[in-house]
């Protein structure tokens, strides 16, 4: 019975590690690619109307925030060694 809490802790730790790994390795890379491509659009934004340019700028900022938050959550869940 006493082994159960230790097993639970270990299981929780493994789950945290897996989520951190997924955030870092998958979500983070996809967000980076998204931001890179949004910057391609921004480079051609002169062709867009003012409203669309403002929206694009907001999207880029939001994507950067999501990327940073995802990285922070990953670090909290499983700090780098």
């Amino acid at each position, binding site marked *: 019975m006493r082994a159960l809490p230790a097993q639970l802790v270990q299981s929780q730790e493994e789950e945290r590690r897996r989520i951190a790994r997924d955030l*870092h*390795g998958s979500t*983070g*890379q*996809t*967000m*980076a*690619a*998204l*931001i*890179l*491509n*949004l*910057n*391609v659009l*921004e*480079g*051609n934004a002169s062709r867009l109307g003012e409203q669309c340019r403002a929206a694009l700028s907001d999207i*880029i900022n939001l994507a*950067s925030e999501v*990327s*940073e938050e*995802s*990285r922070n959550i990953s*670090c909290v869940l499983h700090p*780098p060694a």
Partner: protein
Amino acid sequence: MKNLRILIADDHEVVRRGLHALLGTQAGWEVVGEAANGPDAVKLVNQIKPDVVIMDITMPVMSGFDATRLIMETAPQTKILIFTMHDSEQMMQTALEVGARGYVLKSNAGSDLIAAIRALAKDETPLIFRTAKRTPKIV
């Protein structure tokens, strides 16, 4: 004027595609190759001799740090920019020790990447870029 020749080394295809698209918008810059792991990056650098390598750290077979160390032995004129998810002082220190000239976080690609490559192209004092909230460090 001679084009700036850039090699991309990253194991995530979606990131390579994004980099290729963004760098392709810059006048005078040319992506001359892509590698998905460390050994391929080293081999391609020796074959095509790019001016700049954009190097991920965590890659299969060989890390970006080991690949950078090997490239510095055989092609020390190559300017290597680490492009990574790792926001870590220790990683940044290691990047410097193995010979990288810059360090850009993937989460800050939009604000820092183009500026970092421009700095390298001008052979300016090596810059290390941290998060957008902090000032770039001169080392």
